[in-house]
């Protein structure tokens, strides 16, 4: 009974606030990370030598840099240079850089898998290269990238917990505070795991539904 009371009175309200912050982190990061991922992928495939190399460097750097380290640099490392970011903004920027680098790789692979003939046919109809990419290549590539993008979204849900390390009290942060305050580590962290599992499960089902909706028949 005591555990249930602890869950209802303490954990759920605290988690709720943390969850809202986690959802805010995801809601801002995911669309920008996706849009940037598309732009980077297009830049790498169609952007010519300079742009392609630049974005290749971008992806190598942000895929290679541990996310926690990136957050530390953004939050603790920039103030001496006159740039002070709030913990939330620093987290968002770090997540977007990481998320877009990975998304760009899924999307680049998907773009390369669209047959050259699709672009050729679009050009033969009088489309500019940009029109051909926008209306013919990307709609097909993004469909193929859905599993990769949704996977990255799931990672985002989980690595959003790193924001706690730079003092953003999101879901994990809220859990850690409760656990320490009430010395109830097992109950709190188990409940936390259940919430993350629920988020990931909902995302997985959502991604499957999106994949089915946009599947090309035949």
């Amino acid at each position, binding site marked *: 009974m005591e555990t249930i009371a602890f869950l209802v009175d303490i954990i759920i309200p605290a988690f709720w606030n943390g969850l809202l912050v986690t959802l805010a982190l995801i809601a801002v990061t995911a669309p920008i990370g996706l849009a940037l991922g598309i732009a980077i992928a297009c830049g790498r495939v169609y952007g010519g030598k300079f742009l392609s190399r630049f974005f290749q460097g971008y992806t190598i750097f942000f895929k290679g840099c541990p996310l926690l380290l990136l957050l530390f640099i953004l939050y603790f490392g920039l103030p001496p240079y006159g740039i002070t970011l709030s913990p939330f903004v620093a987290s968002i920027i770090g997540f977007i850089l990481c998320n877009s680098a990975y998304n760009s790789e899924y999307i680049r692979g998907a773009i390369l898998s669209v047959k050259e003939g699709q672009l050729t*046919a*679009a050009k*033969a109809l009088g489309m500019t290269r940009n029109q051909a990419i926008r209306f*013919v290549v990307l709609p*097909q590539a993004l*469909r193929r990238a859905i599993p990769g993008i949704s996977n990255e979204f799931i990672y985002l849900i989980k690595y959003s917990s790193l924001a706690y390390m730079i003092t953003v009290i999101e879901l994990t942060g809220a859990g850690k505070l409760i656990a320490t305050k009430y010395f109830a580590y097992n109950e709190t962290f188990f409940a936390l795991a259940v919430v993350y599992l629920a988020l990931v499960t909902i995302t997985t089902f959502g991604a499957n539904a999106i994949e089915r909706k946009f599947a090309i*028949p035949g």
Partner: protein
Amino acid sequence: MSESEFILKVEDIHKSFGSSEVLKGVSFNVKKGETICFIGPSGTGKSTLLRCINQLTIPDSGRVLLNGEEVTHAGSKINHFRQKIGMVFQNFYLFDHLTAVRNVEIALIKVKGMNAKDAREKAMTELRQVGMADWADHYPAELSGGQAQRVSIARALAMDPDVMLFDEPTSALDPELTREVLEVMKKLAQQGMTMLVVTHEMGFACSVANQILFMEHGIIKEQGSPQVLLNDPKFERCKAFIGQFREYSQ
């Protein structure tokens, strides 16, 4: 014959890929409403020549003129010319994510700026023309090769081109499907569409073409009407080439 009679003029086209010269100076003129078939051994530059006409492949030198306007070196205006030069490919290249009717209407909307309703109407008219109206809502993967090729013909026709290029349109099809595509092309020729066709369908070339251009090693080796090419002993190489097809079909 006056210059203005020619809808398309191709002058001294050269094209190399690396050290291999694929086109070694190809010239010919096309009158409005003519059907010209390009025949010849594989790898002799026929498809490259077609792609040089709408600049999908940029020739190293030479000129292409459509209605007297230069298509080569057109810069950004090339997209305008490509609307006037329809192209049908061996592997159809229908847009996989769009239904048949959407395949036909997308360029009308995005390139020509037509409104959705008019574009749909025009797309359906073109699909009817190739006998594919009943399949309008099907995706390319749900169509047979012959059906897909007919949709791709409708897609090119929808842009109201002055000239249609067919790059081995039946090479990926079995004989039955080949027939349905050739019927559509024959109908187009009869309606007065100007057509340039790269093909190995000798029956089609001999019965529909106004002119046959026999290409070998990157040049037009022999050219003339089917009757002349087949009967005049002067054109030995072309006759021998066509003869090989006949041997197998007998």
